[in-house]
């Protein structure tokens, strides 16, 4: 991977700067979603997956994982609303 120097970056025209700003915005929100998925998988795997005797998920485990994400998000929304109401 060739690395960019400071002078390379300084030479960027406005169009390219704008393009990179848009790119960063998009990558940033994608990354937020990715990090949430990492966190949810970590939490819900602990709660839903019992034995690791085989590599496949049982249908109960799969259902539990999906429910776990949805209940976590419900909880998150309720907490935010609850805090807003106490202000």
């Amino acid at each position, binding site marked *: *991977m*060739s*690395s*960019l120097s400071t002078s*390379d*970056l300084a*030479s*960027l*025209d406005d*169009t*390219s700067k704008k*393009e*990179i700003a848009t*790119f*960063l915005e*998009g*990558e940033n929100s*994608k*990354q937020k*979603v*990715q*990090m*949430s*998925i*990492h966190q*949810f*998988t*970590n939490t*819900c*795997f*602990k709660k*839903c*997956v019992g034995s*690791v*005797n*085989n*590599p*496949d*998920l049982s249908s109960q*485990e*799969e259902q539990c*994982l*999906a429910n*776990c*994400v*949805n209940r976590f*998000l419900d909880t998150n929304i309720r907490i935010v609303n609850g805090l807003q109401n106490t202000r």
Partner: protein
Amino acid sequence: MGLSSIFGGGAPSQQKDAASSAKTSSNPIAIELKNQIAQELAVANATELVNKISENCFEKCLTSPYTSRNDPCIDQCLAKYMRSWNVISKAYISRIQNASASGEI
């Protein structure tokens, strides 16, 4: 968003970005910068995944006083974790899509 996207491989949106940037600016420095950013994000995601899987599978497969290893369990746990990642990803993204379609977010 599939698991492959975190390794920087074949996320449809990234391919589209690359194609559209080639059309609009095609400034080689801008393209290089974007590639480097995407590459670093892919590494960060892969590292996060490796750490989380190690933590979870260590927990599930090994017990104190850690005298022996349990490689078959680790391998199955790894496969199971990746499948869980995909299930969670699907559930979360469909929830986001439903919320945005109904105007909640």
